[in-house]
């Protein structure tokens, strides 16, 4: 590396940059720390919507995430299911973005069930508590069909009841009495792709919509949240961490004066303290911190280098 200090600062070799990133993102995983945090309004609204579901509600969930975004999406998926299980909700899951998505969702629920089984907690049973409606190759057509004729769109789809061959999903307790999209008091979309836009285009105004999106999708999702086309959203890893903290502390709970997380807009929403609430968000959030800090430092370093180099040229 030749040249003055300014030039040197601007041209750190890539392998060194990459090594620093690897260290900055992996070391925090071995030293779990709880980072102080104030959940954002969108996640508070998201949590409030889930907690406001009457017990036994039927929820339509579009699960459009796979391994590529599991760092964020799996954490959101697990937290959402922990809340839905607590609300004794029944969930109809379908996917439209990736053929892998239904299996990924199914595996994530099975994993959650295995953990609950180990702790002697009741499991969230397929067919009785949730059904996997499967994959629809064309996301826009699928949501169009769901909005116009839900019975027709899901008609003929089968899932697995206990000790029985596959049966029509409408025979499951999850979809009993459901004939149109308005029969779901909430539609959730956990996505890493544009399929959330289709849900806004076709379902907004018919039934409340709430999203769990990846970090890069936050700006475009904020547009729908600001215009009140969606009731709330959980964005990126920060959103997952917010959600885990909300599960633990609630909002204005036990009251506004003593509550750890406060909101002027929302009333008292209870939390349910449980060591299990701290999941992927709590584990990965420090890593995100260090990665962001590293990026800020590197940007500053590059700019300082540029100024030093310019000054050197002038002198």
């Amino acid at each position: 590396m030749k040249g003055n200090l300014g030039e040197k600062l601007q041209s750190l070799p890539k392998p060194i940059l990459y090594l620093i990133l690897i260290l900055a993102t992996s070391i925090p995983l071995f030293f779990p720390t709880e980072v102080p945090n104030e959940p954002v309004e969108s996640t508070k609204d998201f949590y409030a919507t889930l907690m406001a579901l009457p017990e036994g509600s039927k929820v339509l969930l579009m699960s459009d995430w796979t391994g590529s975004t599991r760092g964020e999406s799996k954490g959101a998926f697990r937290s959402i299911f922990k809340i839905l299980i607590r609300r004794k909700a029944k969930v109809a899951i379908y996917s439209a973005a990736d053929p892998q998505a239904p299996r990924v969702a199914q595996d994530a629920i099975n994993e959650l069930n295995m953990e609950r089984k180990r702790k002697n907690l009741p499991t969230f049973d397929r067919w009785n508590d949730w059904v996997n409606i499967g994959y629809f190759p064309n996301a826009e057509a699928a949501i169009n069909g769901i909005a116009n004729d839900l019975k027709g769109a899901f008609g003929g789809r089968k899932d697995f009841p206990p000790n029985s061959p596959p049966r029509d999903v409408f025979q499951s307790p999850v979809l009993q009495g459901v004939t149109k999209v308005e029969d779901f008091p909430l539609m959730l979309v956990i996505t890493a792709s544009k399929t959330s836009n289709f849900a806004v285009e076709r379902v907004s105004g018919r039934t409340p919509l709430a999203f769990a999106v990846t970090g890069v999708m936050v700006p475009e999702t904020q547009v729908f949240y600001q215009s009140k086309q969606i009731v709330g959203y959980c964005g990126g890893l920060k959103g997952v961490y917010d959600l885990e903290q909300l599960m633990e502390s609630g909002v204005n709970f036990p009251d506004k004066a003593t509550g750890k997380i406060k909101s002027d807009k929302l009333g008292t929403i209870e939390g349910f303290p449980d060591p299990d609430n701290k999941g992927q968000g709590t584990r990965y959030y420090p890593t995100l911190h260090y990665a962001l800090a590293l990026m800020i430092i590197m940007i500053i370093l590059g700019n300082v280098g540029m100024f030093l180099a310019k000054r050197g040229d002038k002198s």
Partner: protein
Amino acid sequence: MIPLLQAQAPATSFWSEAFNSSELWTKLIITLVVGLVVMVGLLYAPIRARKPIIAFFTFISGAYWVLLYLWPKPIDRQPGEMPLNTVETVSFWLADSNNVVVSFTQILTGFLLGLGIFSLLKIHLTKITKGHKDAFFSIVLLVSMGLMIWFGYADWFDRLGERGAMLDNRDNWGFTQYGRDFLFEGLLQQMDAAMFSVIAFYILSAAYRAFRVRSVEATILLSAALLVLLSLMGAVSFVWDENVKSIANGNPFILNFQLTEVAQWIRNTFQTSSIRGIQFGVGLGALAMGLRLWLSLEKPGSGS
């Protein structure tokens, strides 16, 4: 009303045969054969004859969606209700046929997966047979694909039986389920995550090398980006906000300088309005492109 398009009459529909029954399989095979004959017929039709056929079907398919969007929709329609006039007849027909058209769309999109497999096989089998220098990777790809398909289908067939739901529990797994889990969860999902993680390295490298304060615009952009980045760091924003709160002592103006408030202001004021503008532009572009495709003015449609 065309019976095929009556979505409310599934009991007598073509597809209402029992699941896995020989009647259903027979109908599926006949439909597949007819579909293939039509496709082969189109392939062997003279190009001059092919173009108007494709343009005609493209226009009809697009016209359905345009009509569905623009035509008045039935209001408070009751089951078995008869249309009163032509407008209502068309609106009932459009509503009833929606599900059938959506199903067609799903099936056609499903064919893209088949097309992808065909394309992969064609390229990589050619490489293998011709002894290309990268033929080894083609073999790895095809073997991986074959294994995944085999284990995937074997697992699916296992689940069709009475023990289907029991296979969600790992205790009841056999060789097929462990094989599928190893390939899908153990390899594919991990590699998927690893591939996506690589982006972090490029982002860091690009931010370091390209994010320079070279102009007023770049300075504004960089300042806004740094504020939003800092707001994502809970520890930083928490400490910053607590300090501002203690300085403000309840003064609402000073409270505006909390990092979360500043970041929220940037998001709500500049970011969302910019994205809305971009989305309007994209929407107009999509509309223009859609019209060109619908009317077969694009080269692939018109062949010109």
